[in-house]
């Protein structure tokens, strides 16, 4: 299985019901750290529940509401692309 950066798409491109793994969080490391404290981090498995902004994600038994902010990109690898 080849994993390249080309597999990564922005989180907001996921459609509801689609599963993905977080491939990278690009942007200010302090902001990324805040997301990591709530579990949104490299390697985490997520499911897009509701698209749009803010979106709703399911992650390990909990649901999170997330708004995309400028200067921080969450890139994911959709489950189908693995």
């Amino acid at each position, binding site marked *: 299985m080849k994993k390249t950066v080309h597999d990564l798409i922005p989180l907001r491109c996921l459609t509801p019901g689609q599963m993905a793994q977080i491939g990278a969080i690009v942007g*200010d*490391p*302090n*902001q*990324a*750290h*805040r*997301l*990591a*404290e*709530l*579990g*949104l*981090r490299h390697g985490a498995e997520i499911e897009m*529940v*509701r698209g*749009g*902004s*803010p979106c*709703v994600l399911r992650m*390990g*038994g*909990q*649901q*999170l*509401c*997330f*708004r995309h*902010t400028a200067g*921080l990109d969450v890139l994911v690898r959709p489950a189908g692309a693995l």
Partner: protein
Amino acid sequence: MHATKDPAKSITVALIGNPNTGKSTLFNSLAGVRQHVGNYPGATVEKKIGQFTIAGQPFDLVDLPGTYSLAPRSPDEMVTVDALLGRLAEEPAPDVVVCVLDASRLQQNLYLFSQVLELGRPTVLVLNKMDLAEAQGTSVDVAGLSSRLGVPVVAMQAHRKLGLETLRQTIQQAVEQPARAGESPFPEVFRREVADLQAALKPAAAESLPRYLIERLLLDSGGWLEQAGLPGVDNGAMQQVRQARARLAEAGYPVPAVEAMARYDWAARTLDGLVKTSETPSRSGSDRLDGILMHRFWGSLIFALLMTLVFQAIFIGAEPLMEGIEDGIGWLGQRLDYVLPEGVLRSLLQDGVLAGVGAVLVFLPQILILFVFIAVLEDCGYMARAAYLMDRLMSRIGLSGKSFIPLLSSFACAIPGIMAARVIEDRRDRLTTMLIAPLMTCGARLPVYTLLIAAFIPAHRVLGGWIGLQGLTLLAMYVLGLLVAVLAAFVLKRTLLRGETPPFLMELPSYQWPSPATVVRRVSENGWSFLRGAGTLIFTVSVLVWAAAYFPRDPAVEAEVRSGYAPQIEALQQRAVELAEGGEDGDSAARVELEQERAELKATISRHVAGAYMEHSYLARAGRVIEPAVEPLGWDWRIGCAVIASFPAREVVVSTLGVIYHLGEGQDERSESLRDTLRGATWPGTDRRVFNIPVALSLMVFYALCAQCAATLAIMRHETGTWRWPLLTFTYMTVLAYAGAWLTYHIGMQF
């Protein structure tokens, strides 16, 4: 409330955990009614302390705010860390730390627990919501987890009080265990840097910093902690910290990312083989509910209906209660008429003390009603959904969905609105919300608008007869407040409260039935918090304004008014004498008429005496002093005076106008005579009318934008812990109000 106890022997237990883990339920189960709320100095964090005893041994239970991480980035977050480390003055270090984890989100929750372990205090892990975890197909090997962590683990269902007794025993046993420095989950190279820094900082510091804070200093590349005034942390030390960060980045462990890596790796290692999850988690009832409640259309519709209900309840439901309080206060005041002679004491008690108590109590119904709704919605998990629905709208003005309910509540009254802003974690968002909340058109502005609109705005119909001009004016005042609030939020977020917007990530807790005990406790806590925090100040301001309007009370003022009426009194007496001379069979109708005239004259004189006293009071002097300032707004000194008098509460302006325009006390906004008097009032010595439409509009605009509400400022002081924010609010709103009133008057005079 305190049991008699030897403070030296009391054992302190700190309670910490992620939000939505059932921590508050657990706190209430352990402490019962033996709890009280205070404040940590310099922070807006509430200090909740509960007491309980195990086998005669008293325990103090400290409830720390729910948090995902012990990484301080603000004074509030620092308080939590300091409390756990025992670095707060006059606060003992906790003898035991109880960390509450949600069993259904164990791996995620272990992040905070790994930080707690590093603090080196005796620790108890509470695995709460075991039933929910099982329902989701997750089972945890509790004994295995305990032996792997070397920490007692108690499985619980706090909302059913299951496991409570075991927890009590475990806490008691944990006290006996020696504190041990928790094992660091960080890689070797990071630990070495921490040890080197600790050694380097030691000689400089009077008290040596705990290892955990050294780690934090190294990890906090955002730079908050280096300004937090930690002992020994100076430029030289920060130089070393920066060098250490550079070396760590070189070694492939960049800060702060290394922390998440290390802790989640540790969590995964810890749980390896101890947690079993069934492969297919079924779609739960919670998800089905979300399908409706979070739906863009149906969810928004339900939310709108719910908010209408909340708003109606605060606005209309509180009305009879508030009237009841006012009537009760009024009745007590009337009793005083019989008990006390007229004079300074009676006036102080009636118009100072009782009015002050009334001014405080009258807010309680709205506060309590709002918090019943908030507590229920929060406890059942709906609040996060509401924030989700409103986030799209609120993010446009730089706030998050969490600001919506505080701001909406402020349309009834800014006080519960400002108190409701506590739910906003982000400090800048919370302050912005509090600072713009008083611009929402609250219930206290309505009497002012009603009086002035009814008196001066013609009841024309516009737009083809569909809308009345009076209603349109009222609507315009609501819209004005809202627009200025949006602008103020925009400006505040770009100037004073500027800063990087943290990414908005909010947990949506599973739905559950609200617990009546939690709701009752939340509501009563907020009621007390208001009475304690703002009540005394509102009361004081009321008494001070009474004194300003009462004194100096020179008797010559009254004598002068009475002498002015001497001819009329004489004429009446003359007629009485004539009637008496008319003999026994004198005209009884004439007698009745005479009595009526006498009573009317007496009432007129006493109204004029009250008005004259007001004109000679310190308040009036203040009104005259500010007259040059309010004249550009088209106001005379009497309006200026009424505006000053309304500082305890906006609606007071109506009754003050009543007294100052010689109508006597007890005038309200529906009073016809007050309307007529205002229409007829002239500038002293001329027949130029004081009020016209531009003046009325300028006064309304002033009240739409001003912060003439001591209660709002007092609660803001209470909630932020400093006078800085209420003073800022008062200043910016008064400036806006003045500018708005000036513009309105001058534009109005062009037509």
